[in-house]
Structures are given as structure tokens and as C-alpha cells.
């Protein structure tokens, strides 16, 4: 592919006359990944023009609080903003809000023009796709009633907040991180919350069985009504046929009152533009270790990217798509290196957090492929950790209200050190003190 493009005569790449040839980098998607990419590029001395473009009408903001502090009203929206307007101006980054890109024309040399739904055109010399993911829709009867909501962006959160005051009963569909975070927040705000989970346990495969069970018990003991192996059949309005949701009818005929239905059943990567560009796509935009897409010039970063597993020592060829702040940041740094001609492979230990009621979960590493676990439980102090092992080596940990364990495992993994399983079982032992060099 690469050689073919290089052999093409220079005259084969023609720009429409109206488009300047050198117009810098266009970053499509102005969120965690796009912001970090722009910031890292400037830190590396990248001096070409940067356009950071997104379809949302807000200044780029942090999403994690949308299901937590922002929903509960304990932080101001201003606190979620990544960088001040002055910062962007000083760093010569042109921020474009409210423009949705529908089509991109790109030449073999990587340059081209992006077309927005408004008709505006954004020429570029180089392209970055940081378009993230969108909420997966639940397509059942009543799905279009008012009050059937999702939670992916600030407008979703504002719509939810606007309805919360008048609601008594909320049904959350999906027992994943976002569903459980929002359910905990809404419960704290005095709502009567029921969580429906289609699968046999909470949080799917992101955590092991023990952690899923711990969360189930912990939430139930805090009064959250969680129903596993349960799915909604339809959403209904009042008998008078109003426009707002009033109830959720389950597969077994049970009817739960609900003035709000919040659906959190996962996300779908926004690969539309990549597909239109003819880039390789497979559960995300397929990128190499340098965040480069299959054309060798476009970078794709964050939630939208399907990349080689960055964990050192993982199976060659193993691919993964991660949805986390940590990944968006670290992956963007790798892309910034690529765009400045420095090749740094993406290697690192992913980490993640989720706050649900008074349960602070921190996850270090990826647990997939584990063959043994060690449980550390301190009932009195409300601490709980699961350490995951593969062939005697620690690969990950889920830690609830146990930051010392989290930090010890995160640091050990980052340095390629081990925490022997037999010594780790006593919760009174500090993991940091038993970490070994190999």
C-alpha cells in the first residue's frame, strides 16, 4: 500500500483550487483525546496550525463527572472545562464548536478537506480522528418517549438534570459503570432507583466475578434495587397516551413505575468517517502501536481506536479498544509523537476509576486471561481488593476504598515487578513491602 502511494506521480494529488495546501492539523472531536493531542503537540514544539473541532456547543469538558458530581450538583459546570480560552489562544489552537463533520475528501499525501453539515469546509494537511463513541440505543417499544434518556455528553446530562426534580422513580437499564454511577447518584438525590441488568452479573467482563459480586451486595445493602437477568420489554406512557414515559414493563410482565428511564448499555465507536475514508475498521478504527490508521498518515486516538494491547508482554497481535480517560491521555501522547516524527510505541498499564456512592473503585492493569485471584478484605475499614494473577505474576487489581493497594499494584506493574500471591493474602500486609523485583 505504502509503496504504491509513493510511486504515484506528484501530479496525481490535486487540491481543489480554493483550498490552501498547508493548513496544518485538523483534529476532529474536541474531548479528552482531542484536547490532550493538541496540548501534547504544543508541548512537543509542533508549530503548525491546529484546529480542534467538535460538534458539541460546549467548550471541551471532562465527561466522568456527568454521572457523578455534576449530576449530583456538587460541582459547577465551569469546573469540568479542560482549558481556559486564554490557554487555547496563547497556544495558537483554533477551537471550533458546533460543527459536525459529515464527509472528508483526502488525497494520497494525507491532506484534504473536511465538510461540515453546516456547509463549512475545513482544509487540512494532516488529520486526527478523536471522535470517540456514542451511546448504544435500546430499540424497544416506547424508546422515543420523553424521559427515556442516555448519558454520554453534557447535553444528555443537562436533559437528565432537568427532569430529575419532578421524578420519584427511576429505572436504570444496564448494570455497567455508567449505569451504576448514575443509579448511585440518583439514589443519593432521593430517587427510588431500580437497576435492570440483562446479564447474570454486574459490570460485564471489565472486572472479575468477585468484584462484580462485591458491588452487587454493596449496592443492595445500600438500598439499590438491582435485578439481574432482567430485561425491559417496553416503555409505556400514562393511560391517556401522554408523551412522557410512566412505566417500564419487564419481559415477565412486571410493571415498574418510572418517570425517568436511563439507558446505559454500552457505546459504539464513531467509525463513520473512517469508513468513508476507506480506513481499516473493526470495532473501532484499526491503528498500529503509533496510533496510525491503515493509511499510515491519519491518527486515531482514544475511545474510537482499536489498537494493539499496550500492556507490556501481552500476546502479539492481541487487539483492544479501551474506554477510559487514562487511555485517551496516553494514546494521545503517542499520536503526538507520531505527528512530530518521533516514533514511540504505545506501552503502559491502563488504569481506571469509578465512583459509586461511597465506593471508590480503582482498577490497575487489565484482568483478562487471569488464572488465579487473591482477595483482600478488611470489613471493618470497608476496604476490598481483588488481585489478578497469570502464571504466578500479578497482572491487575480491582481496589475498592483501598488506594494503597491500587497504588502498590499500579507501581509494581509499571516497573515490571511482582507481588507474590501467597504473601498478598493477608490484608494487614502492605503490598508495597512485599513487592519483588521479578
Amino acid at each position, binding site marked *: 500500500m505504502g509503496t504504491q502511494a509513493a510511486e504515484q506521480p506528484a501530479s496525481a494529488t490535486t487540491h481543489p483550487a480554493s483550498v490552501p495546501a498547508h493548513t496544518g492539523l485538523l483534529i476532529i472531536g474536541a474531548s479528552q483525546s482531542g484536547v490532550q493531542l493538541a496540548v501534547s503537540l504544543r508541548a512537543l514544539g509542533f508549530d503548525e496550525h491546529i484546529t480542534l473541532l467538535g460538534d458539541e456547543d460546549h467548550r471541551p469538558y471532562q465527561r466522568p463527572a456527568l454521572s457523578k458530581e455534576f449530576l449530583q450538583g456538587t460541582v459547577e459546570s465551569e469546573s469540568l472545562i479542560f482549558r481556559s480560552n486564554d*490557554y487555547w489562544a496563547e497556544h495558537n489552537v483554533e477551537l471550533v464548536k458546533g460543527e459536525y463533520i459529515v464527509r472528508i475528501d483526502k488525497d494520497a499525501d494525507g491532506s484534504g478537506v473536511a465538510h461540515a453539515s453546516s456547509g463549512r469546509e475545513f482544509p487540512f494537511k494532516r488529520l486526527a480522528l478523536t471522535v470517540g463513541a456514542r451511546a448504544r440505543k435500546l430499540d424497544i417499544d416506547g424508546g422515543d418517549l420523553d424521559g427515556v434518556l442516555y448519558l454520554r455528553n453534557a447535553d444528555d446530562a443537562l436533559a437528565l438534570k432537568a427532569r430529575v426534580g419532578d421524578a420519584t422513580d427511576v429505572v436504570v437499564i444496564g448494570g455497567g459503570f455508567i449505569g451504576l454511577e448514575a443509579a448511585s447518584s440518583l439514589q443519593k438525590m432521593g430517587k427510588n432507583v431500580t437497576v435492570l441488568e440483562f446479564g447474570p452479573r454486574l459490570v460485564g467482563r471489565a472486572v472479575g466475578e468477585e468484584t462484580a459480586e462485591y458491588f452487587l451486595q454493596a449496592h443492595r445493602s445500600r438500598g439499590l434495587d438491582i435485578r439481574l437477568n432482567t430485561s425491559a420489554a417496553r416503555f409505556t406512557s400514562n393511560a391517556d397516551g401522554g408523551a412522557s414515559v410512566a412505566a417500564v414493563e419487564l419481559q415477565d410482565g412486571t410493571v415498574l413505575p418510572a418517570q425517568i428511564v436511563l439507558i446505559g448499555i454500552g457505546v459504539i465507536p464513531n467509525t463513520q468517517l473512517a469508513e468513508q475514508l476507506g480506513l481499516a475498521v473493526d470495532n473501532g478504527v484499526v491503528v498500529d502501536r503509533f496510533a496510525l490508521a491503515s493509511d499510515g498518515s491519519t491518527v486515531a486516538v482514544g475511545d474510537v481506536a482499536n489498537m494493539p494491547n499496550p500492556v507490556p508482554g501481552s500476546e502479539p497481535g492481541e487487539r483492544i479498544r479501551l474506554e477510559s480517560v487514562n487511555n485517551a491521555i496516553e494514546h494521545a501522547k503517542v499520536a503526538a509523537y507520531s505527528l512530530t516524527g518521533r516514533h514511540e510505541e504505545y506501552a503502559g498499564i491502563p488504569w481506571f476509576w469509578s465512583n459509586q456512592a461511597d465506593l*471508590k473503585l480503582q482498577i490497575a492493569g487489565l484482568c483478562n486471561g487471569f488464572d488465579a485471584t487473591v482477595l483482600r478484605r478488611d470489613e471493618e475499614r470497608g476496604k476490598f481488593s481483588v488481585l489478578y494473577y497469570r502464571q504466578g505474576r500479578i497482572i491487575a487489581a480491582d481496589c475498592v476504598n483501598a488506594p494503597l493497594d491500587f497504588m502498590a499494584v499500579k507501581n509494581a506493574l509499571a516497573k515490571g515487578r511482582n507481588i507474590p500471591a501467597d504473601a498478598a493474602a493477608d490484608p494487614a500486609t502492605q503490598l508495597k513491602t512485599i513487592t519483588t523485583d521479578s
Partner: protein
Amino acid sequence: MPTVHFTDAEGAVRDVEGNVGDSVMETAVRNGVPGIVAECGGSLSCATCHVFVREDCVSQLPPMEDMEDEMLYGTAVDREDNSRLSCQLRLADGTELFVTTPETQV
């Protein structure tokens, strides 16, 4: 206006004006002070907002909660007696704070 004076590990100083109620971390990040990473955006989950507070400013600060204390044991540069996580430090009217950022946060 509250002011935070950030000194980096090499000794370069940046004076940043903040807003009452904002944290030291937010004040740094929004203005692009490089020594603060703050991956978790202030939710006390990442310990990449570590600062050393000048001794004579320590007494102005709110006491440390257990969670912050435990997180500080995992910072990239080892904690000292004057270590704090800057997302837990809120600016009040008239606050004038001198902090040093560690050589690395990750």
C-alpha cells in the same frame, strides 16, 4: 483574587490568579501549568496532582482526609511532610499559596 505561585522542579516560577472555590489543581490545569497532570480531574483517584506546599503556607490548608493520605503513598515522586494533592486544596478569598511541583507525576 487568590493567587498560587507554582515553582517547578527546575525552579521556574509561574504566578496564577485563581477563583475563590476552585482547587489549586483546577487553577493549574486550566492555565496549562505543566507540573500538574490531574488525570482524574479531581476525584481523588490518580495522585497525579501532587504538590509540595511551602512550609509557612501549610497551616492555611484544610486537614487531610484518610483517602488523600493513602493516595499520597503512591505518588511518582515520594511524599514529604509538606505533600498534598492539589485537587483537595480550595482557594479562599485572599489565599496566597506557594507550591512546588514534583519532577514527574507519572
